[in-house]
């Protein structure tokens, strides 16, 4: 009986072993072939990627423009008087055109024959003087700027735009669908326009802050500063503002077809605009240092404490 048991076990193990041997050999062979094909393709592609560095000497208030159809652009403060650009070209089907005319520097991705969204991609990393004026344009993005205090103009079709810790400069942002996030932007004119991208504003204050999105939403988290004009407009997107308890602003909100509400009491004020419960409200808090206008055609507007 023991020998029968042992025989059956051996038979089963032999069958399993044979099956596994066959499958493992086949799997291994296929794996090796495919892996070698992919590795060679990856190697060929990576071999075409190249990095180039450009250095420019500039004076105060330089103007720097970077335009790429495909690729990311990031800008950070560097040393005064020098612009350093590191461009990563994904293939040989794209080249970088660069030129300097005095204090103006222009770089652009030049797509060559056969370029597509993958092979025509160029990523730029910029180190620029903090007071430089910067113009960035990328269809795909992302676009990222931080710790500068010159004027900024950022444009992208689907690009994700991030601007952080920028002071004293004007900030202009335009996208078609790309979401826009501004944080720690102070003491400058801010104009943001998007057709359907969401707009996030955190600690954004200044003499003028305008944000408009057709179908995207607008979120504001801050205290509206002291003495600025804030205008947020959407067509169908919602508008939401989170403010601290000590906010000092005059508010006017109106949605033609959407709901409007405020979660804390407002002091009434005389205005040529009529107030309609659920569709609009007018009032002030604190000293009404800033003026805040929230408008939407059919989106919902909400004002609440943080």
């Amino acid at each position, binding site marked *: 009986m023991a020998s*029968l048991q*042992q025989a059956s076990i051996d038979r089963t193990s032999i069958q399993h072993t044979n099956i596994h041997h066959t499958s493992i050999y086949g799997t291994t062979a296929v794996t090796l072939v495919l892996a070698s094909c992919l590795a060679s393709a990856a190697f060929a592609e990576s071999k075409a990627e190249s990095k180039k560095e450009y250095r420019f000497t500039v004076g105060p208030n330089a103007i720097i423009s970077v335009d790429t159809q495909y690729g990311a652009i990031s800008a950070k403060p560097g040393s005064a008087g020098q612009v350093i650009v590191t461009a990563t070209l994904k293939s040989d089907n794209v080249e970088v055109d660069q030129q300097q005319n005095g204090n103006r520097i222009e770089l652009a991705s030049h797509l060559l024959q056969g370029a597509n969204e993958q092979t025509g991609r160029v990523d730029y990393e910029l180190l620029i003087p903090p007071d430089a004026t910067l113009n960035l344009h990328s269809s795909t993005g992302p676009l990222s700027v931080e710790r500068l205090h010159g004027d900024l103009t950022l444009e992208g079709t689907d690009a994700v735009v991030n601007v952080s810790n920028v002071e004293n400069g004007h900030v202009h942002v335009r996208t078609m669908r790309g979401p826009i996030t501004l944080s720690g932007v102070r003491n400058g004119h801010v104009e943001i326009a998007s*057709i359907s991208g969401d707009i996030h504003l955190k600690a954004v204050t200044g003499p003028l802050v305008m944000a*408009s999105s057709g179908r995207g939403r607008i979120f504001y988290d801050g205290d509206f500063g002291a003495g600025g004009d804030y205008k947020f407009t959407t067509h169908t997107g919602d508008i939401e503002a989170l403010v601290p308890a000590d906010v000092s602003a005059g508010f006017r909100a109106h949605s033609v077809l959407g709901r409007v509400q405020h979660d804390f009491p407002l002091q009434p004020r005389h205005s040529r605009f009529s107030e309609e419960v659920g569709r609009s409200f007018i009032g002030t808090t604190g000293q009404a240092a800033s003026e805040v206008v929230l408008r939407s055609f059919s989106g919902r507007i909400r004002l609440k404490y943080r």
Partner: protein
Amino acid sequence: MTCSEVERVLPELLDGGSNGAFPPDFDAHLKCCPTCSDLVSDLKLIASEARQLAASEEPASRVWVRIAAELRAEGLIRDSAIPDSAIHDSTIREPEFAPARPVVVPVPVPASPRWRWRALWLAPVAAAVLVASAYVISHKPAPQVATQQAPAPAVTSPAPVTPATTPALVPAPAPQQMAKNSAKPKGVSGNGNEIGRVAEAAAEPEPSAEDQQFLSVVSTLGPSTRATYESQLRAVNADIQETQAYVDRNPGDADARQHLMDAYQQKALLYQIALDRIQ
């Protein structure tokens, strides 16, 4: 009796030798030696547990008969006489009708089964590689960027009135033209229902002639780009149409008129973003 002597006689005693009786000095040693005492108790426990386990999981005899028949059919065993001195496994009952004991035909067995288990991880890796390679092979690259620009379309629309500068290639339609083309929905049936009119007005209208012209120029950037702009254009036109319809019903609503202007500015923005891309 010493510990080594205990260990020597212990297997025989546990197997039932000497009729289960232990020598007198054996017990005396266990009483004064905790190590040997623990060893004996552990072995007794294991032996008893093993007997119970074997008895509970022992298959029926017909199972072994069937297995034997299959093994004989495959030639893996052959019947032969086994001497009495062969090892006897008391935990398994022998088949009652089998006088000769089968002998296993030696078959090579892999020396290291571990390699089989180690190689099994290749299966999911191979599957992932297959999926990735299928994607790479089937992925069609985006169409090449055209280096030869399409000829500029004939300008037939009135001069642009939009505030932003517009290149001469495709002028943005005037607001009046936009209103005419965007706010007039096709196939809208007239009825007195306010909600119905709003719903019909909110339906995305077909692009106008100027919009088609715009899209044809955008097409030079690629079919996916055209699709993106076309969807955005339809959405903007729908917003304009919706707002225009509301303003028509409520001409005194200044805020609604302002929203209508905002909607046209959104369309102008769309044109500008697209035309900035066209070289």
